[in-house]
């Protein structure tokens, strides 16, 4: 298996505050990498560094053997890496299908082709029944699915999901878990998932990295992570360790 993404000694400082310091790990093609950590640990900052929203203060990000740190997010998207947002960002006044079409237009100039591609992705997330509904009026669960469909429409090789299950009820979360597993089964798309729902992340991840206070605390298979005393300490405090 080839390495698709390599994060090498990435640090991000905001003034004197280190949101990430010296984080390194890599992703193999086709795997699902889970990322966990307490609130404020720097998971989303790391996502922003990887996808081009912030240039890392130190270190570099290598995607498909190419250095991408310092590139703009739109370039990175066209190279084949796309992210979703923890706080959903629907194009509120546009319809569901138009939202996904904006993603699809990344690979085509034809509206007709884009519409077909978008419809396919809507079927993947099971929202093909309401293409003309305005995205801003959808319930949160469907907005999250729309984020995924829109990201998939850009035809990525690497999909970064930032808390897609946050704020969802158990049934909706389960649907997202199925969706993530289906994407994996479909092949061709590597995924990195930030999640707080431990049960979910243990179920879907091939490997997990734990971020705490901006640093990588541990990395390993789900089994190794639950048995790691340092991880337990970070989550539950010294008393339980």
């Amino acid at each position, binding site marked *: 298996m080839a390495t698709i993404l390599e994060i090498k000694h990435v640090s991000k400082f905001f003034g004197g505050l280190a949101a990430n310091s010296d984080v390194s790990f890599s992703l193999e093609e086709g795997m699902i990498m889970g990322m966990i950590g307490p609130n404020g640990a720097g998971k989303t900052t790391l996502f922003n560094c990887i*996808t081009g*929203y912030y240039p890392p203060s130190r270190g570099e990000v290598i995607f498909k053997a190419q250095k991408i740190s310092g590139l*703009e*997010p*739109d*370039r990175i*998207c*066209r190279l084949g890496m*796309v*992210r979703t*947002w923890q706080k959903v*960002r*629907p*194009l*509120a*006044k*546009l*319809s569901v*299908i*138009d939202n996904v*079409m*904006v*993603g699809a*237009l*990344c690979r085509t*100039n034809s*509206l007709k082709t*884009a519409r077909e591609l978008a419809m396919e992705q809507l079927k993947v997330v099971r929202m093909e029944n309401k293409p*003309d*509904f*305005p*995205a801003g*009026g959808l319930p949160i669960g469907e907005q999250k699915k729309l984020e995924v469909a*829109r*990201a998939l429409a*850009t035809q990525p090789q690497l999909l970064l999901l930032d808390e897609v299950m946050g704020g969802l009820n158990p049934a909706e979360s389960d649907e997202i878990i199925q969706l993530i597993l289906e994407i994996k089964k479909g092949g061709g798309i590597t995924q990195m998932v930030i999640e707080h729902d431990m049960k979910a992340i243990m179920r879907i991840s091939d490997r997990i990295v734990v971020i705490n206070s901006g640093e990588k605390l541990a990395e390993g298979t789900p089994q190794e992570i639950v048995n790691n005393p340092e991880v337990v300490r970070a989550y539950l405090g010294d008393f339980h360790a």
Partner: protein
Amino acid sequence: MKSTLALIRTTAGTSPVATALGLAVLAGLFLFPSFVKSPYTLHIMILFFLSTIQGEAWNIIGGYTGQYSIGHVAYFGAGAYTTMILMQYKQIPPWYGMLAGIGVALVVSLIIGSICFRLQGPYFVLASIAVAEIMRLSAINLKDITNGAEGILITEIPVFKIGNTVVTDFLSKVPFYYVGLVITLVTILVTWMVQNSKLGYYFQAIREDQDAAHSLGISLPLYKNIALALSAVFTSLSGSFYAIYIGYIDPSTVLNLDISVQIVLVCIIGGIGTIWGPVIGAMVLVPLSEALRSDLIAGMIFKTGLTSEGSAIGTFLKENLAHAHALIYGILVVVVILFMPDGVLGWVKKLTVQKGRG
């Protein structure tokens, strides 16, 4: 409830009644000067065309892309000045001058865009106003080129010939009417084409959520600059057209901030981000500003008998109402924002939807 894009997609071209109605209006507009001879009516129509062109042009950057430029007078002035300077000092006929004006406006827009698009939201608005003011002050002070505050007056427009056939000598308002009509139709057509293309989707994505658009592969500087350049081209055309039509320009008429505001008002009142919004906005604003200018409103108040022309209030109204257009526009904007946040067009659509349901 459907989103705007879906609504337009379902109404575009499908309904034969709408198509027939559209063609009838189009034919009516082309035949209009054969029936209506009054120069004043033609003048109002020409002002309506000007306003529509400006509104549609602003709509591309403001309505679709969500970048509220309040400095569009910069492009209007660029078109007006380029055309007039070339005609006055180089004897270049205005139809070539218009093209040169477009070129100048494009350059100006790319300079403004590459600087101002580093800013977002209110900061972009302020920067756009600042750039327009720089243009106005330059026009006042670069006396050698622009003739400063005295402005440029042309007395004669060269005869427009194709080969040896005289097409028009521009002596009446009729040729101006047709030029205005054609530019208006082209502007609306281009807006329609933009809306139904990748550009339209990308512009609206940037308007709805810049960061999301960025993450979906949309280069923000590229597409914002394309939107601004498109907008500048048609605003500049309206400026050239205005200059030739009126025959006189100076910094306080063609580079006045009032024009920028009026361009934005046309869109806000009609309906932002829609093809027909600016048309409706121009239909409301142009007659209103004419009514204010010609004391029509004061006259109407006297007729109702609320106050007489000779009384103190009457004299006050008569003297000041014509100058109160800014006040009346202000009130109009407040009313529109309070009661029809999507403009007149959005309000009408909402009414018809409600009727359809009830």
